[in-house]
């Protein structure tokens, strides 16, 4: 059943500084294959920063990230190959059709171009494949951005507010995607303000400028 080798993604004593302000410090987490980690907390608590740290877009000011016990910083290329990042920006070019947009991200992920059409259909965008992205609605653009997750089969999904602008039906599709991914042994870390049903999920609550005690243990599963 498991499409991904059993793996573990952990962070130990992570600290993040943005603009001379400590966003968080002494933060630890652990995600095992087949589970999801939901980051919650008010604006400015560092949810996006933590995700960017996990994606390697931002270097941690303290602590380190480990994949199966090996430091991620030792082999960033391998880390990028196993993660899929979806931030606030949709990364969609209005001048290209939905299919061309999806095919571009498929090529970057090293997936065959045919995978793009399947991913579009999965997200309910099949009939719009030839439509220029400038004519898509906000929610459709977000769904188009989410097709990236289905391309190339990355083990770790890092999602920043994946359901912004989506209607209830589309949120259900996203939840089904997450469930499928976890069932296949993948991992999901997502930051969200609205409840998203995730399987086998733990929740990590970030508080603004929280200074946890030195011996901070991984967040407990609810």
């Amino acid at each position, binding site marked *: 059943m498991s499409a991904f080798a059993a793996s573990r993604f952990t962070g130990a004593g992570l600290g993040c500084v943005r603009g001379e302000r400590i966003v968080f410090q002494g933060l630890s987490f652990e995600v095992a294959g087949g589970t999801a980690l939901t980051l919650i907390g008010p604006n400015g608590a560092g949810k996006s920063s933590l995700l*960017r740290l996990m*994606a*390697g*877009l*931002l*270097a941690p000011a303290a602590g380190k990230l480990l994949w199966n016990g090996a430091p991620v910083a030792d082999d960033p*290329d391998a880390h*990028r*190959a196993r*993660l*899929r*990042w*979806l*931030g*606030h*920006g*949709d*990364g*969609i*070019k209005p*001048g*290209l059709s939905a299919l*061309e947009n999806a*095919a*571009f*991200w498929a*090529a*970057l*992920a*090293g997936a065959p171009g045919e995978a793009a059409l399947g991913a579009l259909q999965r997200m309910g965008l099949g009939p719009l494949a030839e439509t220029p992205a400038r004519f898509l609605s906000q929610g459709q653009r977000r769904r188009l951005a989410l097709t*990236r997750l289905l391309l*190339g089969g990355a083990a770790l999904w*890092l999602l920043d507010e994946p359901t912004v602008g989506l209607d209830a039906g589309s949120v259900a599709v996203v939840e089904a995607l997450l469930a499928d991914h976890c069932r296949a042994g993948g991992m999901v870390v997502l930051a969200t303000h609205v409840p998203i049903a995730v399987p086998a999920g733990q929740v990590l609550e970030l508080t603004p400028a929280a200074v946890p005690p030195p011996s901070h243990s991984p967040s407990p599963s609810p």
Partner: protein
Amino acid sequence: MNAFRAILVRDLRLALRQGGDAAAVVLFFVLAASLFPFGVGPEPNLLARVAAGVIWVTALLAVMLGLDRLFLADHEDGSLEGMVASPAPMLVIVLAKCLAQWLLSGLPLVLATPILAIFLQLPAEGLPALLGALLLGTPTLVLVGAIGAALVLGARRGGVLLALLVLPLTVPVLIFGVAAADAAIAGLPARPHLLVLGAMLLAALAAAPFAAAAALRQAVE
């Protein structure tokens, strides 16, 4: 390699569909160079003397004109983040974007040069050397400019800042580019100048993508 082609094809397709940007660079080049006969007077000997320099300076400015857009659109819509976090190596991303940029804003200038050369009374024996120099020099300009374009991401009025950062670095290209044409006009071999331009292109090709990649990583932090 797949990623290289994907980025190249995407950028070319976007530019050709929107059309405006690529055409604007060539039009600027032709218009700006055509202003010189009005400024310095239509005296053929004088024009012939300055033609190579005028063409080079305007080509330099035309390349700068489009450069600030090199990474900006991708930065604004989140594509850049996605590319940096993707398995595609940063060097591949930078090189693909630079090649697309050169095909859109460097190569058209080279193709428009013969017309300007007639207009500016450039002696015919100087034209091949000038074209060769532009072919070798404009990619260098794009590569060096890419460093600047990556550095000014997120800055206000990035275009002006970019020109201030990059123009001083392009002086050697300008000197040898004009010297190649002047040498050919004077009946001297243009080859040494072209070789120096080729060396500068190779050096830029080797070093600039690393610098631009580092700057892009800073930009997406």
